[in-house]
């Protein structure tokens, strides 16, 4: 079983009985989305901007968690005090594998809102708890993710340097996951349109809008039937 908790914006934590993975604990308007004292084993950051890196260093220090990212991200986290021996630089298409988790990064791109320049952003293909999760981070290009097998696809929809709704829908239709989870929206109209398009044109795909604090539990019933439940707080969550 794979549990996915949503913190808001682009921050998710994936957890199984074996391990846990925090994605993009960003800081937005000066506020961290994820608490510093989160207990987590691995933190993966898809690019070096603050809305992705956020308080990753502090969480890593508190939880003694590994931090994964590209070179510039690792340098940034290091400069923020993270322990060098808990840092790992990801290489394009080179899997990072530990018991209970396999993570393969693919170089994608996003726009830096500070200067409108394109910067690298990793899209992550994650295998945990018998689930394949595609997390494209803050991307505005799809890379191979339209063709990778994914049971769950997490995509931004807000535009402004990342996918707008139409591109998010397009990648979902190509990847054809069982669940399509939007993130980083600007308004509820975007959520409404994303859900409408996926429901209407993504035959077999379920659009799932998560609210901050909600926990998604996914499982293979009888080994092959995909099932999911969503709740405000998972059974093992304390917050």
């Amino acid at each position, binding site marked *: 079983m794979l549990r996915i908790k949503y913190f808001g914006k682009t921050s998710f934590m994936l957890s199984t009985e074996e391990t846990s993975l925090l994605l993009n604990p960003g800081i937005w308007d000066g506020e961290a989305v994820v608490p510093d004292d989160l207990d987590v084993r691995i933190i993966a950051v898809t690019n070096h901007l603050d809305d992705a890196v956020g308080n990753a260093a502090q969480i890593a220090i508190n939880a003694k968690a590994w931090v994964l990212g590209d070179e510039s991200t690792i340098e940034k986290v290091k400069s923020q005090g993270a322990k060098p021996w808990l840092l790992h630089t990801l290489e394009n298409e080179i899997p990072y594998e530990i018991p209970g988790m396999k993570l393969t990064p693919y170089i994608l791109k996003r726009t830096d809102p500070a200067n409108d320049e394109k910067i690298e952003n990793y899209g992550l293909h994650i295998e945990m708890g018998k689930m394949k999760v595609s997390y494209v981070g803050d991307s505005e290009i799809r890379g191979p993710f339209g063709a990778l097998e994914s049971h769950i696809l997490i995509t931004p929809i807000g535009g402004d340097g990342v996918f707008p709704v139409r591109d998010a829908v397009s990648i979902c239709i190509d990847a054809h996951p069982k669940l399509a989870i939007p993130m980083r929206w600007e308004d509820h109209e975007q959520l409404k349109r994303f859900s*409408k398009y996926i429901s209407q044109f993504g035959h077999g795909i379920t659009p799932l809008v998560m609210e901050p604090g909600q926990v998604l539990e996914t499982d293979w019933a009888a080994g092959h039937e995909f099932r999911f439940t969503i709740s405000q707080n998972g059974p093992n969550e304390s917050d």
Partner: protein
Amino acid sequence: MSEQKKVIIDIEETERTQLGELSELENIEAFGVLTVKNPSERCRVWNVRVLLSDTRDQTDITEDVLLAGEIDAGSSWQHRYKVTVESPILTLSETYDTCGEVTTEEPHWAYCFGKDNLLRVTIRVKNETDGEIDNIVLNKTVPPELSNVTIEQVKSGTAEYDDGTRQIIWKDFVIYPHEENELVFTATANVEDAEEKDAGQVVVTYRAEGQQRSLLAPDLTALTEFLTGIDSAENEPNNWEVTLECSNESDLVIRLDKAEVYVESEESGTKEKRIDESPEIELGPGTEWTSSFQMESKSQPKCSQEVIYTPVNIVTKRVLGTIEKAAQSIPVYKIEYTKTFDPPEVNSFDKTPVEVNIEVRNAGTAKINEITVIDKLPDDVMPPTKEYIEIYIRGEEYTGNFEFAIDPEDQDPNHPHTLTFKISDLKDSVGELQPGESIRINYSIMAWKSRPEKEYPSPIHCFANTYPPGIETEVASAEDGHKIGIIYKKRRISAKKAINKGTEAGQYILVLVIENKGEVTVENVKVSDWIPRGFEVVGIEPEDLEPRQQPVDDGTDLVWIFERMNPGDQKKIRVTIQGEGEYDRREPVVTSD
């Protein structure tokens, strides 16, 4: 024999009726003229008193007796009065059906813009009385937008259309008690704008001889030239024959109502009535009437008389009527539409959701009860499903029933689809669409790998109708209208090949670099590279890019298929081959969708 002239009491009452647009009674007023005519050529009548007794209740006459005074020969006296009535004796109704070609229980009431409106107008008049009504003349004004005016039917009388005055005149008929007459004409109406039109007034005049609206039953008393006298003749001594003599000296017929003669007693001075008659006889001009008795008296009797007479009268009466029916206002039903795509353009070869907004506005002056939109979608477009179609009326989401059909019934983007939306019976749901109001239909489509060399027109055809339904007004785009814009994104796939010698004799390393240098994602990229007979593949890097090996006449084709390559994607493949013989260079062949 001289002419028998009688005083005439003439009652001529007039009713004026105004009907509203739909023949409803708006106002009726009636008034009358009571005339006393003295037909005599030489005799005056005087002390004329018109007696109404208790028949004046429905009038504004305040006295039971009208004093007419004296009326010279050949003259007359008049009294005007008002009469209270509730409805006319002739009723009129007009049914102006703007769509005679569609049969409905209720008539159609609006013109359809842009179409020939085949009208059928029925005008009925009914006699509500027990007497005949004649002298009926009906005028119907024909509005200027009508042509091909044809009198289809009249039960009786003659009806003609005068193109010069644009009037239909129907006349020369009598309506018997409680019967009805009917005129039907047809015409074609064409309107060039949406302003309300005037359907033309109807005016009918009529006469009902012998009838009246009031209950007046007049009589009169008067005096005229009438000679009376007592002749006392002694037949024998002290025996007298007393004769009352009355003679009509006028040229009028006079009725003698009462003749009394009294004799005064010489001794007591009391009077004794000796002639007491009520002959009620009509005396023609120059005729006499006498009555006598015998009495004993030593002297000539002292007699006095009392004679009551009056000129005989006849009552004539009639009702004259006018009905004016106001012209019916005929609104026009007309629609306009807009259709937009958001975004208006999509990238070629991509899959892009597009919002389609269709707004149909009531651009006429009539209320609209149903709207139908037929929207055609081209191929390479995935059509919507019903549950995601949104309809807004007056800016608010409409949650009532609507019909939606899609032909063919699938979402396959490989062929065109026709969508039909029908929103009907607004009257009984959210109310008819008033002039200026609109209906907006919103739905989504998915542009599905649109090709830049193709055009994607999405024409639309909108219809609207009223209640009851007549012919539909419509508005449509051109057959190639409303094209979905395609942003051409260039495709460019680069294939490079290097041949390097391997570590062993007869071994070569082929390096293939396939790169999407275009602006758009390409799918099903097929790369085919040939190796000569006598050589075989001994190694592939990366290992997961194992090619399919397809034997050909002079060797083997190595074939890779990449499902999707995004702009900037690069595939670098190292193929190690081993064999004997010559290795000629051939360039790899790359194809894609």
